[in-house]
């Protein structure tokens, strides 16, 4: 008994001593919490944070990456315990938080200078604010992936217009191969064609006008709806039974010629088949190839809390992440694209998209402008099942109005 107590005391003492040791090492350092929402990017950010801590002896950055990060962030905002630096997507959540003034105003910051103005404008459009509260970091692309081997075998070329796309799909179908591998069991997947068609055929301005009740979906979205339905003719036997994960596996194995998807799926596809010979082209939505824009949104933006004690150090950390070497490493690992001017993505799978980025021919995802409470995903999934265009457009209008009136 006595022995046990002495042992316990020794252990306690030892633990106190080691704790002191840690404190001594970090004393006088500014501690920053870096909170980010992408579980896929945890490893990449860990490397960059380690590099930063090594080269900045006065600052100690710690990365926090909880599951369901957006909800965690919301609860921390309620508790007034906001992380110093936050990395998140330019989503409806970001917009709501920005409007609640929890992020620092970075309009005058030097950080903005390095960023492609297209993406700065996107953030302003999403939040509807004139001040800049987030620095776009990595961006993504939504388009059509294709299997280069199948295209070569069938003698197909990359379609540039909607008619060519349908003709290509028809040829693939005639040869007995699945043209598009749809993964519509997951409702967010049904949205990908919508996100490409709406900004190109109707335009992002529609959503601003919709907020002011100047236009309706019923007037403007018939063509979008018809094209959404047309694509279903070129799926497989069980379009609504397969999930995103099923689709990544199937496309990696070469089961379909094309795959309407975002660039975020490329690392997943390569996990299933590292040798998958894939290419990526923008969704051809209309019949004038010069007017067609690539859909690209802000996948990660960096922002500083308004209430942080260490604004200067936080800016220093963001400036470090924006350095061409560091963001270059990040986008290479994540197959993402850079919001910093002059940093390009050299992955052969997405090489065809580079000209669009260079020329600034990009436009944001449509659903970033639709309030989350409208539940667009469920509406689109329901429409593709019952194929009733009139009811679909009417639902979009009534749901939008209902959400507006409940605010």
């Amino acid at each position: 008994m006595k022995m046990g107590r002495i042992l316990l005391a020794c252990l306690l003492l030892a633990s106190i001593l080691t704790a002191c040791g840690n404190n001594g090492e970090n004393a006088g350092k500014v501690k920053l919490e870096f909170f980010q929402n992408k579980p896929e990017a945890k490893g990449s950010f860990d490397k960059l944070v380690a590099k930063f801590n090594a080269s900045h002896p006065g600052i100690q950055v710690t990365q926090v990456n909880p599951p369901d990060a957006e909800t965690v962030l919301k609860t921390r905002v309620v508790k007034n315990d906001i992380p110093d630096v936050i990395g998140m997507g330019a989503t409806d959540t970001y917009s709501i938080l920005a409007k609640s003034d929890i992020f620092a105003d970075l309009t005058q910051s030097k950080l903005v200078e390095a960023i492609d103005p297209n993406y700065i404008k996107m953030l302003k459009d999403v939040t509807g604010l004139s001040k800049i509260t987030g620095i776009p970091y990595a961006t993504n692309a939504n388009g059509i992936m294709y299997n280069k081997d199948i295209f070569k075998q069938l003698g197909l070329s990359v379609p540039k217009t909607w008619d060519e796309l349908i003709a290509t799909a028809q040829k693939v179908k005639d040869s007995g191969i699945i043209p598009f591998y749809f993964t519509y069991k997951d409702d967010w997947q049904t949205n990908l064609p919508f996100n490409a068609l709406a900004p190109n055929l109707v335009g992002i301005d529609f959503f601003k006008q919709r907020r002011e009740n100047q236009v309706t979906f019923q007037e403007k979205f018939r063509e979008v709806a018809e094209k959404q339905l047309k694509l279903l003719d070129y799926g497989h036997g069980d379009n609504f039974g397969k999930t995103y994960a099923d689709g990544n596996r199937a496309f990696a194995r070469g089961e379909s010629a094309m795959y309407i998807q975002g660039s975020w799926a490329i690392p997943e596809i390569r996990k299933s088949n590292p040798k998958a010979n894939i290419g990526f082209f923008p969704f051809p939505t209309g019949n004038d190839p010069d007017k067609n824009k690539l859909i690209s949104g802000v996948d990660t933006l960096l922002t500083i809390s308004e209430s942080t004690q260490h604004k200067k150090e936080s800016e220093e950390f963001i400036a470090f992440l924006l350095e061409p070497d560091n963001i270059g490493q990040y986008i290479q690992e994540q197959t993402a694209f850079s919001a910093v001017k002059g940093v390009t993505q050299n992955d052969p799978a997405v090489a065809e998209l580079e000209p669009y980025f260079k020329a600034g021919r990009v436009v944001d995802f449509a659903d970033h402008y639709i309030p989350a409470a409208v539940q667009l995903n469920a509406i689109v999934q329901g429409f593709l099942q019952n194929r009733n265009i009139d009811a679909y457009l009417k639902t979009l209008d009534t749901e939008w109005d209902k959400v507006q009136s409940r605010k």
Partner: protein
Amino acid sequence: MSKRLTAYYWMTVPAVVLFFVFMTLPALQGIYYSFTNWNGFGKHYDFIGFRNYANLFTDSNVGNAYLFTFKFAIVVTILINVLSLLIALGLNARIKARNFFRGIYFLPNILSVLIVGYIFNYLFSNVFTIWGQNLGIHAFSTNILGNENLAWIGVVIVAVWQGIAFNTILYLAGLQTIPASLYEASNLDGASRWQEFWRITFPLISPFFTINMVLAMKNSLMVFDQIVALTNGGPGRATQSISHLIYIGGFQGGEFAYQSANSVIYFIVIAIISILQLKFLQGRESDM
């Protein structure tokens, strides 16, 4: 206060306090927020009176969720009770390896709903479809969870498969309270098995029937986990239950106050149904 009473207070008060802090207080807060336009975070909100409640009654998504939930709850309650009573009768008979079978039938109850849901999700998309194709049945050669008209059946199958376990145990306990002498007497009188069941077994386990009906109904009215794991309310809104709508709209959609109003209404509905069920079924018990 006598010493004996103190002991009883020690047994009951902590539970009451815990229940109040973790259940009653949040419920009262929910009622409070249902009269505001709070989005779930941030400091700004206004009181808007009964506007959330008025909007609820014109929201077709709410009506749709109620319709699905009640259809689902009624079918599941009936199936669970019929099947678990049959299984309990079998497990109560003098069969070989009786304890082994009792263990097997109880197994689904100790598995997490989410795990069961995800396993079935995989089966529905990758295993049952192959069986359907091999058997040449068109309706089953595609994932039924991806079909607007059939998806709810998939959810029913999973809910029943798992729900049976607990109700079987309750029925089994009920069956063991019936004295064997009653069956001996009925045997002497030459009663058939059918008569035996309706005249002796069923009336004597009627308190268990009541509680099983109420529990199964209440659990299936609050169905949530199975939906998240299997369909996430889809396709479209075909399998969206009320709990799921409250969660999705309140947390993802940022309409916390509006969905709080929805939960208040739903709380009242469930309370009324449970009271009616208890009244009706207990009245029946005393008639028997």
